[in-house]
């Protein structure tokens, strides 16, 4: 069954030429020298007043990176990136070290305001407490501009700051966990990131603490010819809980820009981390010109017993996405979840999915992935579910569906399911193309037309993913909610 008109309209509404965040902030900025070299790394490290061990760590990564070859297995194609033609450091001039909110350049505040990210804490001071408060770490090109609600979080014992600040203030914590989930040499882009990461967020939730508000990082690439390499590290101590949101946009430019981030999550005994992303990088124009190359390594380590990590992503941006948020289920009874909606339009290429690696006993995971491709885009789900020898009673359920809108796009599914333990029970399916006759009959009997019935049933279905998103992201995700999938293919 082909996609219905409503779906086509909805997808069109978020087509690449409708990109709303393509403006450029006119702000004086300082850049490091072009090119990737030891000097670049030393410059970066010095710029951030990093401890000696960190500089060495980066240099080691750089040396390893220079020995590596770019991976070619993903179903994406793009001209070779010239890593020596990039700036690895770009920061608004007005930002010199951490500042309080009222010292931040108003131009920057206006930028975030325009993006719908309020960076002010004023409402609270005025006594008008909004229903859902979110602490935001705003990253502009290579630096964190401001982190809100820091003091209030501190009272709860929660550390939420830029990773640069964490390296100065909490070096032991960073040193203990950095690279422990995504090793320096994990893959080509992770190694590059390890060498040149500029900023990102650091979150530490102490034992037994439930983080009092949502934490959020908003990434904005503004400068030209600049790669953004952020690094995020989240540690949830025993029995703690945190919900973390991530958003990203970039101006509309003709050339491609590189974004190679690494996100590491560590959940100890009974801890839970909920990580949500609305990825809306500039996808390129309707002729496929420009756009962000989003080559991201995201991995969570369920290190403790009964720990839980859940990834939720709504992906609409980027010219090329190469991203597999994964869970290492090490602790007994730990649980990993992955919920994803990836919509591709124009000439976008998406190769995304997840890895659930079951190492511990009684671990369970769930994967729900919906891919919608339109225009001339290619949308690939690539996933791995594996149970190792000792992962007795591991459970996985995977459902990955895709929908094509139009004749010039492609949807692909590449699942790897590896079981090395007999008691591991894996189920993988893709069945959305069939809405059950019973459900249809039930709706029609109550006076709904075919279209309405299908929309109702399917929307209920997509909500599997949407309802995993925190309220704050609902607005951005809203336009996707009603996309129906009735013509989908497995």
């Amino acid at each position, binding site marked *: 069954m082909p996609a219905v008109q409503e779906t086509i309209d909805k997808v069109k509404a978020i087509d690449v030429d409708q990109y709303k965040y393509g403006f450029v902030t006119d702000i004086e900025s300082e850049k490091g020298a072009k090119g990737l070299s030891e000097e670049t790394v030393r410059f970066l490290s010095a710029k951030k007043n990093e401890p000696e061990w960190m500089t060495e760590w980066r240099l080691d990564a750089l040396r390893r990176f220079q020995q590596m070859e770019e991976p070619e*297995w993903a179903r994406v194609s793009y001209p070779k990136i010239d890593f020596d033609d990039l700036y690895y450091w770009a920061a608004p001039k007005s930002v010199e070290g951490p500042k309080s909110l009222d010292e931040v350049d108003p131009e920057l505040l206006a930028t975030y305001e325009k993006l719908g990210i309020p960076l002010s804490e004023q409402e609270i001071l005025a006594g008008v407490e909004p229903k859902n408060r979110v602490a935001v770490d705003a990253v502009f090109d290579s630096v964190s501009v401001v982190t809100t609600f820091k003091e209030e979080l501190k009272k709860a014992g929660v550390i939420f700051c830029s990773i640069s600040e964490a390296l100065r203030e909490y070096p032991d914590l960073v040193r203990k966990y950095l690279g422990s989930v995504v090793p320096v040499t994990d893959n080509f882009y992770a190694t590059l990131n390890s060498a040149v990461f500029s900023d990102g967020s650091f979150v530490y939730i102490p034992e037994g603490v439930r983080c009092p508000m949502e934490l959020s990082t908003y990434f904005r690439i503004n400068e030209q010819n600049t790669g953004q390499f952020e690094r995020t590290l989240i540690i949830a101590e025993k029995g703690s809980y945190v919900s973390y949101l991530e958003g990203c946009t970039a101006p509309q430019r003709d050339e491609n820009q590189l974004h190679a981030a690494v996100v590491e999550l560590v959940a100890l005994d009974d801890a839970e981390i909920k990580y949500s992303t609305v990825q809306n990088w500039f996808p390129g124009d309707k002729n496929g010109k420009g756009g962000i190359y989003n080559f991201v390594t995201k991995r969570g380590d369920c290190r403790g017993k009964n720990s839980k990590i859940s990834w939720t992503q709504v992906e609409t941006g980027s010219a090329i996405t190469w991203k597999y948020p994964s869970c290492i289920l090490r602790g007994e009874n730990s649980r990993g979840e992955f919920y994803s909606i990836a919509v591709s339009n124009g000439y976008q290429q998406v190769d995304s999915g997840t890895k659930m690696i079951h190492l511990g006993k009684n671990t369970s995971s769930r994967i729900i992935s919906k891919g919608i491709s339109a225009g001339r885009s290619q949308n690939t789900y690539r996933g791995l579910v594996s149970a190792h020898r000792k992962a007795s009673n591991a459970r996985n359920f995977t459902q990955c569906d895709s929908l094509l809108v139009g004749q010039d796009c492609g949807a692909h599914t590449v699942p790897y399911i590896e079981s090395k333990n007999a008691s591991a029970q894996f189920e993988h399916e893709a069945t959305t193309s069939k809405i059950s006759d019973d459900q249809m009959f039930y709706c029609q009997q109550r006076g709904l037309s075919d279209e309405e019935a299908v929309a109702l049933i399917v929307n209920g279905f997509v909500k599997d993913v949407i309802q995993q998103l925190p309220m704050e992201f609902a607005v951005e995700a809203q336009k996707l909610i009603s996309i129906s999938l009735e013509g989908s293919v497995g």
Partner: protein
Amino acid sequence: MNASVPIKHTQAESDLFNRFERAKDALPGSVAVAALREAALNQVREKGLPHRRVEEYKYSDLRAFLKSAAPLADVADISAARAVLVAQDTFGELDRYKVVLANGIYLEDLSDAAALASEGATVTNMSDALAGEHSAQLLGSPKAGPNDGVIALNTAFVQGGVVIEVKAGATLSKPVELVHVATSTGAQVTRNKIVLGKGAKLRLLESFVGDTGEGELNAVFDYDVADNSSLAATRLIVGRTDAARLLTTIAKVGAQAELKSLGFVAGMRFSRNQQFVEFKGENSEAKIYGVTMAGGDDLADQTLIVDHAVPNCNSREFFKTVLDGRAKGVYQGRINVAQHAQKTDGEMMTQALLLSEEAEMANKPELEIFADDVICAHGATSGQIDEDLLFYLRARGIPEDEAKTLLVLAFLSEAIEEYGEDNVTEGLEARVRGWLAGH
């Protein structure tokens, strides 16, 4: 990684190169065929045997498995071939025609060529065909696997085989068994082309008997299923051997045609049954079934690519795997749907049952879809025997071993029964029982 650096050849690869030098003058074929052989061997020279870094062989590392390569088997003695056929009769009482390949070469004296001719089917010796006109076309590769390493090995060393042509409109009264016989140890490499004329019907049986010793068996079956024709192919890869069993199907399916196949694999140390099915005409159907049993240190690989290159075709892929010991099962399936192949209906299912703690299963059911008005679904499951079912049977007085056997049979029967061809498959239950009892 870097193509310009020559690889270090393994013992088996060196053996293969030596084998080629010794055998090439005696191998059949025209000048064009000889050139194809050289090119195929050069591919092995440059890339080595297929190994785990090659995506298609990620789970079935032939390069690591083959420690050495035996010479090609010598020409068979007729009476020896007859003796093996009597001793090992894969299809028993089933009434059928036989086409016999002994040590890789067509043996007309033991084949029912005359009877087949009277029903409209001709059998040609592949060795002769390879020497004739258009010979190079007999050694084609599938569109979806142009550089496959196992097919390259086949092309380099092909000793013989048959071309069976069923004329348009002919329906054979009995199935045809194409049997590979080994009378002495050594590698067997064959290429077989089955051509169905328009509206023809053929039930083909493929079997392999005798002991090849350390020698690998590499057989390629090329099915040409013309418009309105129908082919049911049952392939039984049974009888314990420690040598590699490498089977390839390259099928082209015309319009309003039907292809049905069952690949039944039990007790092979290293097997790969790979199938490339391409739809060339509309409104056709392909039903591909696989049943695999592996124990000990076996590796059993079922690989399948179904290429929906034209609109309005259906395909069903249903694979069952039972694993015991430290065995490793592999299923790699892919459904390709071309951009204009609208109204494609594809459904792929792979299910594995693990009987032991140390067995491993790797499932990779892929979809690659470029058309927007299609239904494609796939599923994959793996797990152990359901304790509740086992309890249910035991509570009714059935001993544990028998209860397990019943559940394994029930599990595998789903695919076998759906395949149909009852008179051909009725002996399979005994084979499953035999494997369970004795592997």
